[in-house]
């Protein structure tokens, strides 16, 4: 590309008021990888972790670890306080009106969706019910409903997507007719395309349905306000947003959560247990059975603070500039021999580029890129129905985050050229 302006380059090498070079210093993995090339372009699968997150967890374990909600002694109370503060931090981050009561910690987004699905199903779903999903869901928002369908026998309908990976809403009214639950991803993990969540939530509500949003690919990259979006439930996962693995959350409107029955049973989720039955605890505790991932919740809260300090709008701007550059450079260098799936307009999608190279299987591609230190995802991205629609078994996917810069895109393009030459 010949016409990059200084501002454009700057946007790729800077996030808000910090340079990517500075940001990388916060991520120990970049220090370890110093002697060999390390071009990490797979944050869509899982992000790297800043020292602040690791330190928060470490400090917790080495100074105040004890079980939460139980002990009546100082460190147990401190542990409880940190854990509950983490809930509030995450809740505020997504604009939850009542963060202390509306965030349910889970293991990941998958568990959050399963929790919502199983709990809602008990009161809402009968054999004549309808659940609406989209054709571009991750398996995490497909399979739980399929399992429940096997048990209950309801109908699952799908909102289709078009050739660019946008949802096709032309028959939305018919599809939603008679539905009790509508569940959709906020951003496609294959195309990066964003779904019109506000519109979908409104349409669902007009039919009396509950709306669940899968925010796994959205929350790490965009500012979000659940109240403004008008959604009822939101699934999130910590490891894609600089947090540790083993922690995610389900946000739900308090009135809705109160009506939903518990999913898992055990300690902490009860108010009373007798031999003839139990009384569930109040929200959100009634959904958190057993000892929770305390250190992970604390780590996630630190990740949220880190993201907030950088600024979500700045993160989006940065990713958009990388995406724009990547789409243009790949197009210019490879023409028709590399097919990019999804829109080529960077303003219309998240920082994800899914592509295939003619004559080189994605699996081989990613193996060869690895020789240049370039890490991309190759596979079906847990979205086999999407792959089927595209008529491919797999794609390669590069995804961007705050620690990526222009040189990463250049390394990707160089490595792609090597791969093409290797298989020519």
């Amino acid at each position, binding site marked *: 590309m010949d016409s990059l302006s200084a501002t454009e380059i700057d946007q790729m090498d800077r996030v808000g008021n910090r340079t990517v070079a500075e940001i990388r210093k916060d991520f120990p993995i970049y220090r370890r990888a110093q002697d060999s090339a390390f071009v990490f372009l797979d944050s869509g699968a899982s992000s790297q972790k800043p020292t602040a997150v690791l330190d928060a967890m470490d400090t917790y374990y080495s100074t105040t670890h004890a079980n939460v909600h139980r002990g009546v002694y100082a460190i147990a109370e401190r542990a409880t306080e940190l854990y509950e503060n983490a809930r509030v931090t995450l809740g505020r981050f997504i604009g939850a009106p009542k963060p202390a009561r509306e965030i349910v910690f889970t293991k990941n987004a998958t568990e959050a969706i399963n929790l919502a699905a199983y709990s809602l199903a008990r009161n809402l779903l009968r054999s004549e019910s309808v659940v609406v999903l989209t054709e571009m869901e991750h398996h995490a928002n497909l399979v739980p409903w399929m399992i429940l369908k096997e048990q209950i026998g309801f109908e699952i309908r799908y909102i289709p997507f078009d050739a660019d990976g946008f949802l096709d809403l032309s028959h939305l009214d018919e599809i939603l007719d008679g539905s009790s639950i509508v569940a959709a991803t906020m951003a496609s993990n294959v195309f990066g395309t964003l779904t019109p969540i506000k519109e979908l939530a409104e349409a669902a509500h007009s039919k009396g349905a509950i709306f669940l949003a899968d925010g796994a690919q959205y929350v790490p990259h965009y500012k979000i306000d659940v109240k403004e979006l008008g959604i009822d439930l939101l699934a999130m996962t910590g490891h894609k947003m600089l947090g540790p693995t083993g922690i995610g959350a389900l946000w739900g409107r308090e009135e809705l959560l109160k009506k939903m029955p518990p999913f898992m049973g055990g300690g902490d989720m009860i108010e009373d247990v007798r031999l003839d039955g139990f009384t569930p605890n109040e929200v959100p505790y009634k959904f958190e059975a057993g000892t929770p991932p305390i250190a992970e919740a604390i780590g996630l809260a630190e990740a949220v603070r880190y993201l907030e300090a950088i600024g979500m709008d700045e993160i989006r701007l940065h990713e958009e500039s990388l995406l724009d550059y990547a789409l243009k450079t790949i197009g210019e260098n490879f023409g028709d021999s590399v097919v990019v799936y999804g829109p080529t307009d960077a303003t219309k999608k998240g920082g994800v580029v899914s592509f295939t190279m003619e004559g080189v*299987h*994605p699996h081989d591609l990613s193996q*060869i890129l690895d020789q240049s230190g370039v890490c991309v995802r190759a*596979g*079906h991205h847990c979205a086999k129905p999407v*792959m089927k629609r595209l008529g491919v078994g797999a794609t390669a996917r590069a995804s961007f985050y705050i620690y990526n810069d222009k040189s990463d895109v250049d390394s990707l393009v160089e490595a792609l050229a090597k791969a093409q030459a290797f298989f020519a």
Partner: protein
Amino acid sequence: MSGLEDLYREIILDHYKNPRNQGELPTPPAVVEQGHNPLCGDEVFVYIEMDGDTIADIKIGGQGCSISRSSASMMSTAVKGKNSEEVHELIHRFKAMMSVEEERPGHEGEADLKEFGELAALQGVVKFPVRIKCATLAWNTLNQALERVQQAG
């Protein structure tokens, strides 16, 4: 790109670009079995047509990476015309070659690899553990197809 040459031997790339015995066979009389690699979405169809106890014809369908396609292609040429006992023996030895060092039975030495012919080219795959499943996919599927033949017979 050293290291890669171990994985992508010339012969492997040749079978990938010019796959042998590609296509379908009418079922029946042929038997077809489908195999999936859940990791990467690769799928393979193995069609075999028996003449008595011998694989009279074999065709490979589906799609996948260079390792899985070339392994399937080489397998098809290696097993055609062999009887089920010979094929089982070959499957066993191939999978032994594909298993990590500690699990490999001691007697699978250099001499055996020589008799392997082209298939020996795939031995470099062992150094890339995530790719082992790619190499063994067609072989496991062939095994299932043979089981199906046995059940039917």
